[in-house]
């Protein structure tokens, strides 16, 4: 199988890369981190193709799509790259929000429509979008992150019928806290890292969900429970999130 992964150097993207390469699949890895890509090249040789692109840069993103068009089509496209911004809404500069919305919302939309719309994904193939558990709970202290992840969730749901018509399957993943540098940077001080899901475990859940052609994945017990509670009492859930996150936020990070 040929798999495309964005944000492949660190965290969940890296875990997916390692797992899929380990299973003998060919991976096209996208990231802005050149050194990280060089390292992947060194380890995996001709099993991997790496492309450096900053997905917050619109010109680079469009170039990337053109470049990908010269490759054979993919089977799985995993749109994983994402960033966060945590702190009081008003304390984070506007340009950080613009960048966040480009990487988390605009780029995956452009890639999905661009790839699926020009037959660059094989029939029977899949696109995976990574939303967030904040879709179920709200996320005071990261309202724009929450916006970006709700947007991508609705987008995935909206394109599902059109994709089904051309034989493509759409998976949306709603992970809770994952034990990555990303979570480390944005979690409130003193939060217990051992309660976060290991990226390798999440990657395995995602691979299983893709194989089973599931539409939605709330990985793990915490995510499943939060989803139900968020549905039953959305406002209570947001208020709870305020208590456990917003009121304990340390420094602003973006």
């Amino acid at each position, binding site marked *: 199988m040929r798999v495309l992964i964005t944000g492949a150097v660190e965290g969940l993207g890296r875990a997916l890369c390692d797992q899929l390469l380990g299973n003998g699949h060919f991976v096209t890895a996208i990231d802005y981190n050149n050194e990280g890509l060089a390292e992947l090249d060194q380890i995996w040789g001709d099993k991997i193709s790496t492309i450096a692109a900053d997905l917050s840069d619109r010109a680079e993103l469009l170039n990337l799509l053109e470049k990908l068009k010269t490759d054979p089509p993919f089977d799985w496209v995993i749109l994983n790259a994402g960033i966060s911004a945590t702190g009081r809404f008003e304390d984070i500069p506007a340009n950080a929000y613009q960048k966040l*919305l480009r990487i988390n*919302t605009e780029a995956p939309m452009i890639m999905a429509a661009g790839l699926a719309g020009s037959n660059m994904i094989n029939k029977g193939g899949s696109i995976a979008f990574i939303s967030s558990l904040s879709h179920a709970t*709200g996320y005071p202290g990261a*309202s*724009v992150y929450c916006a970006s992840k709700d947007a991508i969730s*609705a*987008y995935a749901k909206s394109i599902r019928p059109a*994709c089904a018509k051309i034989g493509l399957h759409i998976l949306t993943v709603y992970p809770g806290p994952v034990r990555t540098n990303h979570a480390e940077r944005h979690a409130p001080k003193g939060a217990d890292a051992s309660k976060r899901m290991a990226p390798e475990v999440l990657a395995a859940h995602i691979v299983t969900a893709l194989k089973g052609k599931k539409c939605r994945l709330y990985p793990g017990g915490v995510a499943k429970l939060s989803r139900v509670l968020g549905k039953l009492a959305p406002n209570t859930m947001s208020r709870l999130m*305020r208590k456990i996150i917003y009121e304990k936020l340390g420094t602003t990070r973006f």
Partner: protein
Amino acid sequence: MAEPRNILITGGTDGIGLKLAYTYANGGNNVVVTGRRSAEDVKGLLAVNITYIKADQAAPDEAANAIIRALAKLGWHHCDLAILNAGNGKAGDPLAENSRDLINRIDVNLTAPILISHALEELLMASANSKLVLIGSTSHRGASNFASYAASKAGLNGFARSLREEWRGRVNVQIIHPGPIATNMHDKAGFDPGIIKRIFLNPDFVARTIIRKIKKGRSPTSISFAARIIDYLTLRNWFSS
């Protein structure tokens, strides 16, 4: 009579925004509206007691800056009510939406309202009883014919849900999701709803309901066909107008 309030409405040159602007201005408030067109082009559209700011949301950061600069010039030291209503939509096959469409939809409908909220923070905090209202859409739950539009409105919903908690006790953040309305939005997007436009919500009804919902302040809240029926059944509406 109540003190006149400082009210900002984005996208006030047509549709719901225009109706809201007239209603609030006739109520004796200081109303400022924004739009993408030049002041010259909207002359004659707006009553003399409504001030216009050109702020094209296709460039979100410039729009937010333009609004703040203009409000400072007008001498606003606080804002009592901001209704972020400007938006565009386009129907069609989601896989045929090109990158330009997608970028424009997210910039105008999502990034711009977020950056404008951000820029308005000080003015809103300076009012004792201020409200920030976002106009979403019932399609925020997903719509197979309006994929990028649904995404942008879902983004606003997530933003409002989180910021409402953050600003609780300081600014009432609220999102209102109308169902399909018989405004020009659809024609502008090159979409002819045809006969079904007859069942779209009446713009006057929607504007009236938005004003009522802003007074109540609950969020999230939708304006749907059921609300339309309740509106009909309210005696008040049989006797008025």
